[in-house]
């Protein structure tokens, strides 16, 4: 076997993904997914969220098991620091989405990954959430993601991987583009 015929193995079942893409092109209704989470207040700023069910492929689906996440704020906020800060969950979501995308795209492009590491940092001016200055937004002023990638590919190909993963990333879209949000009380 020649080197070019070697299939990279990043643990991503690209054939299944491509098959799903074809199937969902034929039956767009099945492509409609609903993602869910529920969150219960514990005390103070501490809450516990769980995810298990979701909807997709035309029916109710479920994760193998229920996952749970503790969220809180650090002690410098006079909180008890029982979990990551909600804004850090956003960073986790962005980094893990981009990383998953890199693996999938690399697999599709037959690039073997050895290590992929993302570090994310986001700036925030607390004058926003504290209501000190109404010109300051509540959220991040910017997010910076830095990837260290060791792979059997040229620098250009790795850059192209990272670019393509942003183009197809749900969380990248969520944090870069507005989304209608409705919040109701039952």
């Amino acid at each position, binding site marked *: 076997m020649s080197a070019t015929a070697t299939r990279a193995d990043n643990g991503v079942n690209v054939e299944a993904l491509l098959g799903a893409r074809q199937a969902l092109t034929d039956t767009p209704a099945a492509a409609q997914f609903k993602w869910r989470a529920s969150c219960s207040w514990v005390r103070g700023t501490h809450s516990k969220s769980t995810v298990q069910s979701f909807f997709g492929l035309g029916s109710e689906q479920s994760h193998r098991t229920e996952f749970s996440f503790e969220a809180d704020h650090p002690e410098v906020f006079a909180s008890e620091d029982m979990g990551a800060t909600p804004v850090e969950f956003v960073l986790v979501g962005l980094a893990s989405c981009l990383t998953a995308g890199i693996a999938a795209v690399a697999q599709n492009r037959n690039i073997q990954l050895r290590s992929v590491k993302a570090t994310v940092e986001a700036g925030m001016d607390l004058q926003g959430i504290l*209501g000190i*200055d*109404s*010109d300051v937004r509540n959220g991040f002023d910017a997010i910076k993601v830095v990837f260290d990638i060791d792979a059997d590919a040229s620098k250009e190909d790795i850059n192209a991987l990272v670019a393509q993963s942003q183009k197809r990333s749900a969380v990248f879209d969520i944090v870069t*583009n*507005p*989304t*209608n*949000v*409705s*919040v109701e009380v039952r």
Partner: protein
Amino acid sequence: MTLAGATDVVVIGAGHSGLAMSRYLSAASVDHVVLERGEIANSWRRERWDSLRLLTPNWQTRLPGLAYRGPVPDGFMTMSEVIAFIDDYAKVVSAPVRTFTSVNSVTAEDGGYQVSTERRVWRARAVVLANGSSSVPDLPPLSTALPPSIRSLTPREYRNPKQLDDRGVLVVGASASGVQLADEIQRSGRRVMLAVGEHIRMPRTYRGRDIQHWLDAMGVLDERFDAVDDIVRARRVPSPQLIGTPERATLDLNALTSRGVEIVGRLAGVADRKVQFSGSLRNHCAMADLKLNRLLDRIDEWIGNHDVGRGVGAPERFAATQVPQHPRLRVDLEAERIGTVLWATGFRPDYRWLQLPAFDRKGRLKHDGGIVDAPGLYALGLNFMRRRKSSFIHGAEDDVRDLGDHLVAYLRRTTSSAAPPTSTFPALGLKARHYVDSAILRAQFR
């Protein structure tokens, strides 16, 4: 010496506030001059759109010494009527106005101020900034990011829909200006999209009377700057969604939607030649509805506790703001034939010529209810400056009385106290005296 141009007080601006202050100063026998860059009521003449009428009813259009006496107390003055009213007022008060006299700079000088105009340099012991709170359109930074084919227009330049090409218009901001302009342009047959952030919803009439009647009667408009929780926030509250029309019509987002205006969220960004709108529209509308209902509850409660006479209607509640199921978040202006963005994003006063350390880090004038952070310097007519009504025409009366009292006391104090013997420093007498006084004053103001 350049005492030829000396006076006690220079009032900058011959609008309703400056003229009301002139009347006060004349009554107190204070030597003063009113400098006006154009004509009396200049911004009402040149910086308003054609169809604009006052948001306040005629009965509320009053100044110390002059009030509306016409046949339609519940009507709303057109711009030409406002100009005539202010012109009349200048005659009534015999104000010493110097028209077509632009101020180029105001600097601190010998414990007083030097006010430079093209023709003359005035020295004054005190200065009143009455040049208006709505001089410069306050544009968001992203206003410069629009594609070049899109025309950017502010309400200061807008006159009527004939100025526009036949493409659609994105109106940014849903305060009084924004809803009025969206309505007028939609009625002209052009497509209109209205970007809505935080806003104040108000019916024109409630229980048979103008909403201003209730706000006035309940004392809401008299609420003082030092009695509210957060004055910085209160001063930023956008103007309520009101229009003055002979029909006394309410102009809220539901009315606009029913006429075909498309409402979208707050303008959030410009990217890839598309404008982006925030997904917070539903929340902004829900907040405005909640605040409206709180206000109506307050009015109902007040009516219940007061003898309001006959002719008061039953309590009403208005339909919740209808928000589109999926408000649009991204619009390609060129592809959708939207040719103009009209920035109804508010105004700020123009103090570019005020060369004094009287501004905060964000460039806002530092003042305590109109008493500026520089001795002998006063402002008039700013949003919620001393009272909620400070920026209204009828708000001038109480503010002018308060600040006039303060100003006259300041002039007396700086004339009588702490004058060093001029014989010691004959040449520098005036200067030395003013330095001492301003030091004393600074200590007093701390």
